[in-house]
């Protein structure tokens, strides 16, 4: 059943919670799980690339699609969204029934148009490195070598700039041959773009325009003056000169003005390349302690904020910093620039505060404890490498939605920002970035997935409503973006879904329920609510949703839990919900605010299948006698003589049970007569490597551990604690999880009880 949805996803990059939609608003509320789509705009697929601009409906701007009705004789097409009739322009190639336009072919629900560039040369992507120098020497060396490597990988046509920061912000003038030269901005002080234009002497030779938004070559910035700071990677050999030399007392944290550095970077890009694709790649090695957005004071004894502090509103710096980054994100959005954050420190660096800037601009995030860690190194490499696993970094996206008039758009949770283009499609109830039908996606890649929430506008009993011919709802997703080759493209995905209404609508809906998509939508929604609604109780909300959903769709006799029965379409859903309750997204107090922010940023940009891993990881068991097989995510899966491979998306754990570990330590795998054992040991590694390679921009952490070792906690934390202290169903060599949490079985028992009690 899931397969059909995956096929649909394969074709159009879209998964919906309900693939059959309720026909009225009331019905839509009854079904608990919101109507939502998870759409991956740039999902690689063998779609057709059309070398011309799309044909659009003149009133609603919808793009010609297979669902448009075509009158070949009159050369007129009818828009499925607004029913307007549009003429084909004369230049369209010979229209005929036999030779319909490509975009009208039924299989071309998703097509891409490539625009022709006339007036401007193809813009090249800009990478502005913003590097923290307040780190220990070892880290600094790691960082240096990583950056050098990155510089080699960067495509030759790319433009590069460098800003370092510590106590102050240093903008490196790479195009100054005589000696290394930097412009040092005060770490305490925000600058505006105008100040920056003055202070970096951009208008030395040409008079500065007195009006308008002044920036870029169009306003008189000479190419030379821009080339001082941003120049082609081939011409640029920057050396990270030195660490921040400011003295740090032993009881203090280094003075680090991350906020100012990003502010300066944003202004520099805003001045030089506004509107053209550029990424600020921030490499941060510790918390910001100075400037407009410190997250903590310099006193080392002061502890970092925790979720608890945030809940109690007990963090002096937090709100101000959040506000700062919100403004920064606005500026970046305005300029179409992306903020990528590489946070590598044992401490928190303020991801929680920066989250909005990263997420809204569609930036990448990497969180690791050191610049020497493979997570960081591989992630950085992955940004630039152009191999089979190319993540297809793209810039400057604009995402638009068209849909049938009975559908309203509530909003999007995902890496995008509202363009505040209101329309009749906007729903009054807003979720995420709403109140608009167009969004900005400054940065996006192959995997970037948006979660779009819909509302059914039709009110009242559907029978009384006279509907037009079809019982289909149409959706069209349009994504303009600057492809990594520099050219502008438009991807258009148009889909249609059947709607049902009336007495039997409950049954009719069932086949269209995508429980995987549903759990992901619920996850994004619960995360979003946790962030935005102060008094929100996620556990209660999850439980209530589940109970209501089950009572609505399930069959049962009151007070008889065992009588409960529900469609197989929902089979896994309670389990997903169980794991969601236990996940890092809900149980935040196990993590720092930074980690939580990180998990959520990643969650909000991932597609369904990867997101599922974050909720309910996969567990594969390897043993000598059996071929690898998935096993339940349960503590009982731990057994002697087995190697377990856990993939929880962020972490991949290879777990050696006691015996295996013992053998390995004894070195049997190095002896020829135990080749099988060696192969067994190697197998999960191969699998892990494969996973890591395919994972895309987020590189998982690989943990290799033995039973009873401390690292084993990465596995145990994810398992269903079905065996607890005192349980007797313990397999040989098994494990006991010491926890107060309930196991899945117990959870289900309670659940059924509640449902049938209502």
């Amino acid at each position, binding site marked *: 059943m899931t397969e059909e949805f995956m096929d649909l996803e394969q074709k159009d990059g879209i998964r919906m919670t309900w693939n059959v939609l309720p026909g009225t608003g009331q019905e839509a509320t009854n079904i608990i799980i919101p109507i939502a789509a998870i759409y991956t705009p740039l999902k690689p697929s063998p779609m057709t690339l059309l070398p011309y601009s799309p044909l659009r409906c003149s009133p609603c701007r919808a793009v010609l699609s297979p669902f448009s009705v075509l009158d070949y004789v009159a050369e007129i097409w009818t828009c499925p969204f607004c029913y307007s009739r549009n003429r084909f322009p004369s230049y369209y190639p010979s229209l005929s029934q036999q030779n319909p336009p490509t975009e009208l072919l039924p299989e071309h629900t998703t097509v891409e148009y490539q625009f022709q560039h006339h007036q401007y040369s193809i813009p090249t992507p800009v990478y502005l490195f913003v590097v923290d120098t307040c780190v220990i020497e070892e880290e600094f060396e790691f960082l240096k070598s990583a950056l050098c490597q990155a510089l080699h990988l960067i495509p030759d046509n790319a433009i590069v700039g460098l800003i370092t920061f510590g*106590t*102050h912000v*240093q903008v490196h*003038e790479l195009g*100054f041959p*005589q*000696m*290394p*030269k*930097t*412009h*040092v*901005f*005060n770490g*305490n*002080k925000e*600058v505006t773009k105008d*100040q*920056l234009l003055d*202070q*970096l*002497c951009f208008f*030395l*030779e040409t008079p500065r325009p007195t009006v308008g938004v002044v920036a870029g070559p169009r306003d008189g910035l000479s190419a030379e003056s821009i080339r001082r700071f941003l120049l082609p990677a081939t011409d640029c050999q920057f050396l990270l*000169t*030195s660490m921040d*030399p*400011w*003295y740090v007392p032993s009881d203090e944290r280094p003075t680090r003005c991350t906020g100012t550095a990003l502010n300066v970077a944003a202004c520099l890009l805003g001045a030089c390349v506004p509107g053209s694709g550029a990424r600020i790649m921030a490499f941060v090695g510790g918390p910001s302690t100075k400037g407009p957005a410190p997250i903590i004071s310099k006193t080392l004894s002061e502890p970092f904020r925790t979720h608890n502090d945030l809940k109690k509103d007990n963090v002096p710096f937090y709100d101000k910093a959040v506000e700062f980054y919100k403004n920064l994100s606005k500026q970046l959005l305005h300029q179409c620039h992306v903020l990528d954050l590489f946070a590598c420190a044992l401490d928190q660096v303020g991801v929680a505060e920066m989250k909005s800037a990263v997420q809204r601009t569609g930036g990448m995030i990497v969180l690791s404890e050191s610049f020497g860690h493979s997570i960081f190194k591989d992630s950085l490499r992955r940004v630039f490498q152009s191999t089979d696993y190319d993540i297809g970094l793209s810039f400057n996206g604009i995402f638009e939605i068209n849909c049938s008039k009975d559908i309203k758009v509530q909003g999007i949770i995902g890496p995008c920002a509202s363009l505040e283009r209101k329309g009749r499609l906007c729903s009054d109830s807003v979720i995420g970035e709403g109140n608009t039908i167009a969004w900005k996606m400054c940065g996006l890649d192959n995997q970037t997935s948006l979660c779009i929430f819909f509302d059914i506008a039709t009110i009242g009993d559907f029978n009384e409503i006279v509907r037009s011919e079809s019982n289909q709802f149409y959706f069209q997703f349009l994504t303009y973006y600057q492809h990594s080759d520099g050219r502008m493209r438009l991807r258009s995905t148009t889909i249609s879904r059947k709607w049902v209404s009336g007495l039997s609508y409950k049954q009719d809906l069932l086949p269209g329920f995508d429980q995987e998509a549903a759990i992901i939508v619920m996850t994004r929604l619960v995360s979003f609510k946790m962030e935005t609604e102060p008094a929100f109780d996620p556990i209660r909300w999850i439980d209530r949703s589940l109970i209501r959903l089950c009572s609505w769709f399930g069959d049962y006799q009151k007070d008889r839990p065992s009588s409960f029965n529900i469609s197989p379409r929902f089979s896994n859903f309670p389990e997903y919900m169980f794991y969601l309750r236990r996940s890092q997204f809900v149980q935040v107090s196990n993590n720092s605010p930074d980690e939580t922010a990180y998990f959520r940023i990643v969650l909000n940009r991932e597609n369904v299948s990867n997101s599922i891993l974050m909720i309910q990881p996969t567990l594969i068991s390897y043993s000598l006698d059996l071929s690898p097989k998935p096993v339940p995510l349960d503590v009982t899966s731990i057994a002697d003589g087995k190697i377990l491979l856990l993939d929880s998306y962020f972490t991949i754990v290879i777990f050696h049970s006691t015996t295996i570990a013992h053998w390995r330590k004894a070195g049997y795998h190095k002896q020829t007569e135990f080749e099988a054992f060696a192969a067994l040991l190697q197998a999960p590694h191969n699998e892990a490597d494969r996973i890591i390679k395919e994972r895309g921009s987020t590189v998982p952490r690989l943990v290799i551990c033995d039973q009873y070792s401390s690292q084993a906690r990465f596995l145990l934390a994810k398992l269903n604690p079905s065996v607890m202290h005192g349980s007797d169903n313990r397999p040989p060599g098994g494990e006991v999880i010491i926890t107060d949490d309930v196991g899945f079985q117990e959870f289900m028992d309670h659940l059924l009880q509640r449902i049938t009690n209502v």
Partner: protein
Amino acid sequence: MASTQPPPTRPRPGYGTNPNPNPNLNSLVGSVQNMQIGNRPSQPPPGPAYVGGIPPQPNNHFGPPGPIVRPGPPPPHSSARPVGAPAGFVAGRPLSAPMVNNGPFTSPPGGPGPFRGNPPQTISSTSGNQGPFSGGPVPQTLNGPSASQTPFSGAPMTQPAVSGGPFASHPPPSSQTPLGGRSLPVRPPFSGPPSSQPPFPGAPPQSSRPPMMAAPPTSQSPFMGPVPSQPSITSTPPASQPPFIGGPFPMFRQPFPGRPPSSQLPYGPGAGQAMPNPSFPGAPPPSQPFNQMPQPPSHQFPGSQMVRGPPGSGISHGSQPWSSQTTQSSPQGMLGMSSTMAPPPPRMYGMATQAPVSPMMGHSPGSTPSKIDPSQVPRPMPSGSSPVIFETRIGGQASIPPPATSDFIVRDTGNCSPRYMRSTINQIPCTGDLLSTSALQLSLLVQPFALPHPSEEPIQVVDFGESGPLRCSRCKGYINPFMKFIEQGRRFVCNLCGSVDQTPRDYLCNLGPDGRRRDVDERPELCRGTVEFVATKEYMVRDPMPAVFFFLIDVSMNAVQTGATAAACSAISQAIADLPEGPRTKVGVATYDSTIHFYNLKRSLQQPLMLIVPDVQDVYTPLHTDIVVQFPECRQPLEQLLENIPIMFENTKIAESALCAAMKACSLSMKPTGGKLLVFQSVLPSVGIGSLTSREAEGRTNISIGEKEAHKLLQPADKNLKTMAIEFAEYQVCVDIFISSQTYVDIASISVIPRTTGGQVYYYYPFSALSDSAKLYNDLRWNVTRPQGFEAVMRVRCTQGLQVQDYFGNFCKRIPTDIDLPGIDSDKTIMVTFKHDDKFQEGSECAFQCAILYTTVYGQRRIRVSNLSLPCTSMLSNIFRSADLDSHFATFLKRAANDVPTNPLSHVREQVTNLCINTLHAYRKYCATVSSTGQLILPETLKLLPLYTLALTKSVGLLADGRFDDRSYWINRAFILSTALCVPLVYPRMIAIQDLASMEDGMLVPPVLSLSSDQVTDDGIYFLENGEDALVYVGNSVDTDVLQKIFGASSIDAIPTQFVLKQYDNELSKKLNEMVSEIQRQRCSYLRLRLCKKDDPSGILFFSYMIEDKTPSGLSYLDFLVRLHRQIQTKMA
């Protein structure tokens, strides 16, 4: 702790002949080299001589034997008398031989002896006066200039002008003569023309003469010149004459009689100048002087000078009251002015004044000028260049110091050297009323780091150990020779506040029969006017700072294009070679245009890293460390950088300058240490904090405002810079600004910073890369090498009865009593004014103590304490007699400089003139006995005051038509100027150089000419210098041969306007170069040479220095005197 007993292991802990750490050798040497532009190696011996400033020979200090040991030939006559004359002449001889420069200094063995003045024991009794010559030895001098002689012999040479002759011949005689009574009379100086020297009894062979003659002429001329008129003069009693001529002769003064011969010794020779005063004190009854004409209070003119119109008295010149008017003996000069001149002496001073007041005059004004003989008017006597020995106290009495401009060697016998502190009056009026009656100023000119004469003993360093220097518990005054120990030494009385303190146990010492501690002579702090104490932790708020030199260079378009940037870089590059050595020396470099560029010079970096601070509204330092780095480490990258800077900015288009922001950023970089910030600036700061506008131009366009409020342009534009400057001072950053510009840069505003931080402004306008680069380098070099201190705090204390009223100079004052000096150096002078708050007893002494706590360039914390104790008097005449012309004029100058920015010019000029008039009037009214109102009577000591006052009113700072920057610069300069340089600033020295070649060997600087266009002829070449600038004026019809020799050009037109003095292979050129070097050495300044031609703007500039001429803006000297006279008469009436 001070050692208690003499012998202990730690004899005197800190006393030692310490190499005075402060004046650093190199710097001194440097000072000399300074003068030599390019060729250091060729540096003449003087260098070393200077070095000697440091402790010469150990035995020096204690070697009274010196004289005795003297290798002199057999001691023929020990008696001075007979020998006297010959000796004198002999001395003349040496003239030629002993070169001025080295002679005196180089001969250590001999030198010391005489200076020591100790010899007396042996000889004193016998040869009383001879002492100086060390009795025996003297005679031998005949045979050869004995070492001992040299010092003196040297003197004559330079002294030539006035004293020269007399001296040379005199010393001996003089000393004797006095004894005998007026010996002078012998000399009818006037009777003969200059050459008439013979009159001297001892008139030596001509040989000695000439030199003197040569010199004297100019200066003497006033007196000598009028030979023709002499007749009238002659009539004057011979006795009186001498004074005129011989200012030199003063020696005769009573001093001798009064004081023990021994003490005199030193003066014998130099007598001329130094002597006079001591005599006063010595003279028993204060009134004496009056009766005894001999009192030549003035240095130069022994006798009071009375110039009178013929009618006034038969004795025209003779001011010589003595003979004619005994009563009038007081030191005073009288310019007789009467309209009723007798025909014969028409040339005399007599003049017709129009002043109706004067009953005697009734003449038409028109005739006035002609009635005065310009040559009779008082003019400065050339100061000799041969050193005179000056003992600060003699016989328990303060001596009156020689003129600041003269060459003298100080022996500190309790009072500090006048170089360090100089009072405007050397006897303190007992009451404030008395002071106001005299209309004189009471101020001290303090120059704590003044360059000592190379032959002077270095300042001794005293270490009191952990307890720190002994101080009065009430006023915190430091232990000094005038604190009185009582009760067997158990307690001591503070001479400043009078409170009594317990003597610390380890400082106890018994008193001798004379009531003095027995160890006085072993403890510098009890027998020297100036000592340095080692500061303890108590005196430090942090570790003493290292010597930090930060160079800030303008690289804006204008600076680069005019070559100023390149000149600055090259100057720095060369000058860093002379920075104080050692690991504590740190340097930094920054450049600026519209932004500020720092350079990280840390050695580990391959290339310096350039760090730009772009925000000039709110500046900061871009790096915490590595901007100011240890010098030796970064020398190579630094040099490389300095070479690159001009190239790097070669094509810059940035015309804006963020000077003030740049200074602030640098000061922030220097904040942890403090130090010297040397700024090179070329254009008006136009952006960033503290930016300025071209006010001058605005003032011009808006004439109505311009007229009324012109002086406002001499005030800082706003308070920002002052605030900034105070902040710099807090960080102990001392800012010197080298302005090499071609436009208005608003020095009035910018100078606030150096002025508040103890720095100074250098000004090269209009800057020429060709001719100013050398000066820039030399100025910079001297700046970093001269003796100096950092993070200093200074306070002057004085005996109760007086209190400090105010300080003037470059410093930051945060609390009323102290002044903060982030930097202080040998060129800076601070004027301290006092007022009475109580009375003094006649005969008591009033003490002044200047204490300056500072850090040496090598990072030691020291307290330099100078003490000056002066007698109090209730006699107005004493006050006048002890007035000090140079320091008096310095106060005039500094006050005027202070007033110019806040008052309309006419006001200031009037005020200055009134100061002069009031003083003369007071003298006339209370001291002069001459009743005739037809005479202008001048106190002998202050007889040049009118001339200098006139010069002041005609100086750049007080002329309305000058550029504002020029005037601001002038004001700034006046603020810090040492006493010795104040007069030259307004009354430059002019020298004829075309005949230099014929000048006698050994004489480096020919006699000066008075500043009157009469002196300038068309066939002459003149050299005029004011200590900073030098003009070379070439007449229209100068002999081409001379042109060729001096300029290497065949005609005037062929000499480039931006010319650089070169040395050619001929005598004339060589002498000229030697002369310039000598002058530069004297002034501690590399002169900015400028060529002037007649009928050219430059010629007009030259003639604007002819102070005595009538100009559109001022009276001629003679007219000025007439005016003074008239006003005094008005007041009298």
